[in-house]
């Protein structure tokens, strides 16, 4: 009886479980149906959003919009504080400058119609265009230009951006004089042969709106004078610009520009290939083929003004080690130039052809006639033998450490490893030390104690050979990271200051570069190839100065 009851109970239990499973199955199927329906709704919404274009999320969808993908967000939209290179591309659309640099490195009048250097070389007088306007529609006058220089120079605000941290100190700016509403004179402490180019890097903005803004407010709000005005800045997401109706100069070709911040390179590439971007910067080497074979976009490359080199640090800190002592000898530094096969490095690791750097001057401005050293390991070995550094029993002449940042420059760690192998092949045993860029590498470099070898990139200019030399302003200069102190080289600066004749200056530059080359100051590598993904729907060419412009 008990067994029967037990069996019946089990039977009832099994039946109930079975019914429950059926219900559960129905419930699960129902859930799946709901999820599928929701997915369909979402997909429909997504398609609608895509059809309306990416700018559908912006307050108003401009008619003809250029969409640009950047890896990083803007650092600040205060014209006195902007600094990062990607921000400069945005800033040049928001504000004008007195002169502007063309894509081939020419300085052309922009907000100014003319510039005249004073007889003593310590002032530039600019005549302004009469049709300049602030975003509000008010006329832009010489008073506004003076404010555009005085405001970033004001120590009260402690600005550290490109204008206040580099341009104005390099210019040795002393003040701006308003001669009349359309004439302004920019004054500086001493003659500076690259003054006009430096002035061309100063954004011109209107006094009234910026006097009303706190620096904190100005960092994320803009009052434009350039071809576009700021519509919206969604931090870490997008910056939306639209045509500035008050801009008195010829209207730009696009009604709007949207800069989208997409840090991950593969996502940026996917957005380009999906047709959601027109231009993307920072194409990585392993995606070149994917873009070029997509049929929707192509990769455009340009040798940029950023020089990639290995610094031979001559800081006394390294003199105690055999390697540190060896690289103080110019003959050793010269020898090592022949040990590295730069074109092969570019082909193999950057997947872009590049020529070896002959000097630190951007090729378009390089009139020195110095030719790049070829790859010749036998010559490197012979020169090292002549310098007295013969191979030991273990085949090693001396040992060095090569420090490199990780992820700062394209494929930097692998480039450093390859260089280390080339140097080891000629008997210079080289160990690579990989460092975090911001927290470790930069402090070491800026204290001049990186290395004794360190992989570095340094930005020059497309418009002046002299600008490119400014990494070495003095033996104790802040940006002279290798503590290079050759008196013959630095005597050149005095000679340049003494003449205002560009031809004479070019001769001095040639002499300085000969010293730089003969002393093997840097291990010259290449001008970094910049890679951009460009949609087939537009025609656009990149510039060497890393600015994304719409000219």
């Amino acid at each position, binding site marked *: 009886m008990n067994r029967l009851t037990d069996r019946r109970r089990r039977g009832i239990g099994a039946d109930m479980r079975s019914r429950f499973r059926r219900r559960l199955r129905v419930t699960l199927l129902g859930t799946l149906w709901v999820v599928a329906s929701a997915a369909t709704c979402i997909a429909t919404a997504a*398609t609608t959003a895509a059809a309306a274009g990416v700018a559908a999320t912006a307050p108003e969808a401009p008619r003809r919009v250029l969409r640009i993908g950047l890896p990083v967000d803007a650092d600040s939209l205060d014209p006195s504080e902007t600094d990062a290179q990607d921000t400069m591309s945005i800033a040049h659309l928001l504000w004008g400058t007195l002169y502007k640099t063309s894509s081939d490195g020419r300085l052309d009048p922009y907000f100014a119609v003319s510039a005249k250097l004073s007889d003593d070389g310590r002032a530039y007088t600019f005549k302004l265009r009469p049709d300049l306007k602030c975003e509000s529609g008010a006329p832009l006058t010489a008073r506004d230009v003076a404010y555009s220089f005085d405001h970033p120079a004001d120590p009260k605000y402690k600005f550290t951006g490109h204008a206040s941290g580099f341009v104005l100190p390099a210019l040795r700016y002393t003040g701006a004089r308003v001669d009349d509403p359309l004439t302004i004179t920019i004054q500086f402490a001493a003659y500076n042969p690259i003054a006009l180019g430096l002035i061309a890097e100063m954004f011109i903005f209107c006094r009234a709106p910026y006097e009303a803004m706190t620096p904190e407010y100005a960092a994320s709000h803009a009052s434009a004078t350039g071809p576009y005005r700021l519509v919206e800045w969604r931090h870490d997401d997008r910056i939306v610009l639209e045509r500035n109706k008050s801009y008195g100069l010829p209207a730009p070709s696009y009604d709007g520009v949207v800069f989208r911040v997409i840090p991950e390179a593969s996502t940026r590439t996917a957005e380009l290939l999906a047709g959601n971007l027109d231009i993307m910067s920072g194409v990585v080497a392993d995606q070149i083929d994917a873009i070029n074979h997509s049929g929707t976009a192509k990769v455009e490359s340009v040798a940029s003004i950023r020089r990639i080199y290995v610094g031979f640090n001559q800081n006394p800190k390294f003199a105690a080690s055999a390697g540190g002592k060896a690289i103080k000898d110019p003959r050793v530094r010269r020898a090592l130039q022949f040990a590295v096969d730069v074109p092969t490095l570019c082909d193999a690791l950057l997947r872009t052809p590049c020529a070896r750097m002959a000097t630190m001057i951007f090729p378009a401005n390089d009139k020195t006639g110095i030719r790049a050293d070829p790859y010749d390991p036998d010559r490197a070995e012979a020169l090292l033998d002549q310098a007295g550094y013969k191979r030991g029993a273990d085949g090693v002449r001396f040992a060095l450490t090569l420090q490199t940042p990780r992820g700062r420059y394209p494929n930097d760690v692998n480039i450093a490893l390859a260089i280390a192998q080339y140097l080891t092949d000629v008997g210079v045993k080289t160990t690579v030390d990989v460092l975090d860029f911001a927290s470790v590498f930069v402090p070491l470099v800026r204290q001049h104690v990186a290395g004794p070898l360190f992989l570095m990139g340094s930005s020059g200019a497309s418009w002046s050979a002299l600008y490119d030399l400014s990494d070495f302003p003095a033996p104790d200069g802040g940006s002279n990271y290798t503590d290079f102190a050759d008196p013959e080289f630095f005597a050149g600066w005095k000679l340049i200051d003494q003449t205002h004749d560009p031809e004479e200056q070019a001769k001095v530059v040639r002499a300085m570069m000969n010293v730089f080359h003969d002393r093997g100051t840097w291990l010259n590598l290449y001008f970094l190839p910049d890679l951009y993904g460009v949609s087939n729907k537009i025609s656009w060419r990149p510039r060497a100065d890393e600015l994304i412009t719409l000219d």
Partner: protein
Amino acid sequence: MALARLLAQRLLQSLVVVLGVTLVSFATLHLGGDPTYLYVGEHASTEEIAATRAKLGFDRPLATQYLGFVRDLLHGDLGNSLTFHEPALGVVLDRFPATLELTFAALGLALALGVPLGVFAALHRGRPLDGGIMVFALIGQSIPSFWLGIMLVLSVGLAWHWLPISGRVPLLDPLLAGDWRTAWNNLPQALPFLVMPSVTIAVFSLARTARLVRSSLLEVLSQDYVRTARAKGLSEARIIVHHALRNAWLPVLTMLGLEFGFLLSGVVVVETVFSWPGVGRLVFNAINHRDIPLVQAAVIVFSLLFVGVNLLVDLLYLRLDPRIRLA
């Protein structure tokens, strides 16, 4: 009384955890090198660097700097972000809705799918369906979120054009600001952007939830009181939902508290892949730029939230399990 003591004990423990977090984050970031170089221009002279160091107090002993930091923290001042030139706490809180939106969506997805899958697997123990669900769970827990994210971008976004690849339309921000209309209007546009990142984050949690629910439920289903309930003739649904699941929830609830923290930390990678403008990306960039005040603000906000959620879980535990109240 015992409950009040328990609560006080938990709060005290939470405070110790938060202080520990501040100490560790402060020490770690300062051990990375001298932060003075962040505040000076590239061409600053040695004298300018020294003056800036003294002005900012970076020349003081680390312990003194830390005490100053804690004092400011108690006043709600976490300093200004070095990159944003704004109060660091404000910058973090601005991005927080985006991260919370993603975290809640992922948690909701993990629960909505993980719990039924776990129940289903437990009820079909040893059958192919159970095996299938467990294989799915194993795969879900093994796939790196970075890889899954990129695969979704390439397939769902790029190849099939079903969903937008990256970006975000704000949903929680207007909601928190009390602007229901904007939130409602944004909803149709926001959902497509939310799907891929939340699925990427949720897959791991979903798999873990399913496994945990399955094992908890199996354990509970073999208990005497379940047999008794069946013997009393209760329906299977009632037994599962009212008796078995309620007790099986306890370990799941513990895991949920931890899961919330895991999801918050997991968003760093996913926010980067999908260009989601949240705190994860903010912290990633802040670490790269050594924006110390910003990293500290984010770490403190994260730890407060994490500690708060776990405190809440503890309280729910008290509610769900009377044995703890009585212990």
